[in-house]
């Protein structure tokens, strides 16, 4: 099985059906929760799913250390991770696309410009600005408006700029860690990977600071019209991905420090996590330009 002259034949596995049950309970529980029910099913499902995935990854790692994985199977994991990241790119594309459409078409039309400028008849007095501080609802209903725009927006040249440096630096440090791993310098690998995790955590800390500032002082919330909607959905999903990426890298660090996993020529688990990290970094650059700089 180590060679490619005969094929690897997989054994039966209980993991998928348990993972399915976990995923189903998570989804069903989430729907139940936001519809006003209790949150227990969601948390039970999420815990079950996380547990199954833990055992699943453990099984994959164990098989690899036992030498069961052929080069061909390893390539399948590489393809799998690559196309998973592409699917994530398309998920973000939907939200970037929404932002583009709103700014290029919807708001000018609502403001009375362009091909469909007649929309302004429904929202008389509305003016197209970005950031959108006065919503169409406010333009028509004044103080009685239900959707109220923000009082201010985040200044890109403070916290977001700092976060840009943090995340770009972390992409470099994770790459340096990779180089040291390939040279079999274990301690240097651990240190640089550790620095990456700290940078990721610092990014998340400042992101939370920024959200607190937005909610407590700027009136910039999910409910504050389309600016808050696009701002929080884009940066929020990115933040969720940074959180996941940081956890992935932290697990890689613990695997290396505690269990001495990874060899200079066999470490796809780490490589996959680092690819994911580079991906969230690139998304951030897009966010910094299109949401923060061009949005302020």
């Amino acid at each position, binding site marked *: *099985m180590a060679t*490619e002259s*005969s*094929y*690897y*034949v*997989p*054994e*039966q*596995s209980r993991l*998928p*059906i348990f*993972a*399915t*049950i976990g*995923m*189903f309970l998570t*989804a*069903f529980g989430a*729907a139940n929760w*936001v*519809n006003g029910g209790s949150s227990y099913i969601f948390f039970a499902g999420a815990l079950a799913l996380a547990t199954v995935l833990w055992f*699943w990854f453990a099984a994959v790692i164990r098989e690899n250390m036992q030498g069961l994985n052929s080069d*061909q*199977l390893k*390539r*399948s*994991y590489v*393809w*799998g991770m690559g*196309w*998973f990241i*592409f*699917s994530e790119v*398309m*998920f973000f*594309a*939907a939200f970037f*696309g*929404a932002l583009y459409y*709103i700014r290029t078409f*919807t*708001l000018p039309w609502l403001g009375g410009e*362009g*091909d*469909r400028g007649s929309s302004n008849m*429904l929202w008389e007095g509305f003016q197209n600005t970005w950031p*959108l501080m006065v*919503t169409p*609802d406010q333009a028509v209903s004044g103080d009685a408006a239900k*959707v109220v725009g923000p009082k201010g927006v985040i200044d890109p040249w403070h916290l977001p700029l700092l976060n840009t440096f943090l995340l770009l630096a972390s992409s470099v440090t994770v790459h340096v860690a990779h180089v040291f791993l390939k040279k079999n310098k274990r301690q240097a690998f651990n240190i640089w990977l550790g620095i990456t995790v700290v940078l990721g955590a610092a990014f998340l800390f400042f992101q939370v600071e920024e959200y607190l500032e937005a909610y407590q002082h700027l009136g910039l*919330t*999910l*409910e*504050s*019209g*389309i*600016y808050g*909607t696009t701002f929080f*959905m884009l940066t929020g999903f990115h933040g969720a991905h940074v959180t996941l990426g940081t956890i992935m890298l932290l697990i890689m660090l613990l695997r290396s420090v505690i269990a001495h996993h990874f060899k200079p020529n066999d470490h796809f688990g780490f490589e996959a996590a680092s690819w994911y990290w580079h991906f969230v970094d690139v998304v951030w650059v897009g966010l910094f330009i299109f949401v923060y700089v061009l949005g302020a």
Partner: protein
Amino acid sequence: MAHGPKPGFTRWLYTTNHKDIGSMYLWFSFAMFLLGGCMALVIRAELFQPGLQIVQPEFFNQMTTMHGLIMVFGAVMPAFVGLANWMVPMMIGAPDMALPRMNNWSFWILPFAFAMLASTLFMEGGAPNFGWTFYAPLSTEYAPPSVTFFIFSIHIMGASSIMGAINIVATILNMRAPGMTLMKMPLFVWTWLITAYLLIAVMPVLAGVVTMMLMDIHFGTSFFSAAGGGDPVLFQHVFWFFGHPEVYIMILPAFGIVSAIIPTFARKPLFGYSSMVYATASIAFLSFIVWAHHMFTVGMPIAGELFFMYATMLIAVPTGVKVFNWVTTMFRGSMTFETPMLFSIAFVILFTLGGFSGLMLAIAPADFQYHDTYFVVAHFHYVLVPGAIFSITAGVYYWLPKWTGNMYNEAMGKVHFWLAFIGLNVTFFPMHFVGLAGMPRRIPDYALQFADFNQIASVGAFLFGAAQIVFLFNVIRTVRGGKKATDEVWENPQGLEWTVPSPAPYHTFSTPPVVR
């Protein structure tokens, strides 16, 4: 390591075998086909005469919505994934799918997702009632509470599709036997490779759009609400950016199946293999730049109308290449008309007919007249029923002897074909006429002058439904026994799947086969 299937039902729960998983996909999709079909029959029964007689309008809307969702996501897509599971590893000389455990996960998510979707029928306020395209704000501000469960079931279905598609890409690119170069791959493998790319590209966009709905409904965002600066039309753009590639996801594998069957029964090699590959790739590329032809009447700038009109018409070129190749393959062939061939020939003719009505709909000014009428219903049922469903049926008859080791009953297969063929034409052809005359879709009642054609359509629908019982009976009989099939099954068919015994062993190839 070569072992047969484990006994007991845990074989199916824990399996990592592509054939087991393929079979489960196919049985699941047939169950969904019957469920969605019953909903269609409720619709046709109500429309048998004008006025309201059987169901309330509210329930009628739930039926049209659930019928569409179940047929698209539950019947057609899983059936093609089931065929890919069964055939792709055999066709490329692989031992199994590249990621077998994830393969099982992709399948088992589906019954749970559809149980959740179907359970909305029994929830307070009823099931989703906003059409399978779930346009905002009907699906957000004015939706029943069950919409949340609909959103999350779409989420996990999407996860299943993305994992399945990644698995197929990894299998095709990584698991081919030595010598199986890309341009030697059977067309079914090619079309599925391209379909898998479409899935990976657009299922996340669907996840994105239902997430936007969820946020608008429960968390006060303004994506689709103009009061906050959003736009309901934004929903349609994002949805159809998913939705148009989605319709090619439901037809490209069909092209692959038909391209396998026609050469076998015409006893000639497929005409224009490489042009088929390039045509498939062109259709896939074009599918990303035509989405707004679904929304010509929504109010777009004239430049948009023109761009999407011409881009849409371009699709006729690669599709024409394909139809030309199939016809040319049959030309002067020594043809016989076994059941798979009958379904394939019907596919070529009727899918082309559906393509022509598609061209009519592509003309933006004409579409202003046709939009949201039964003409549109006729069009997409002509590409989906004799397109997707007939090709799946043809594929099942074609490969069933290889799967089970037994020949199906040819006479019963032909009865199935003629019942289905007549049934579908009687159902959907009159819809062109009532559509052009202005009958709107998704309405439980209609004006008196449409009554005759609607009665004919309803009769046809029940005939088509009855035909599927014959199919089910024939398949079960073949699985249980019958005349033994030879290893080749047909007369000199091409492809690695015919070089292995019938039924194909549990693990097809333990060493890579030789590909010349």
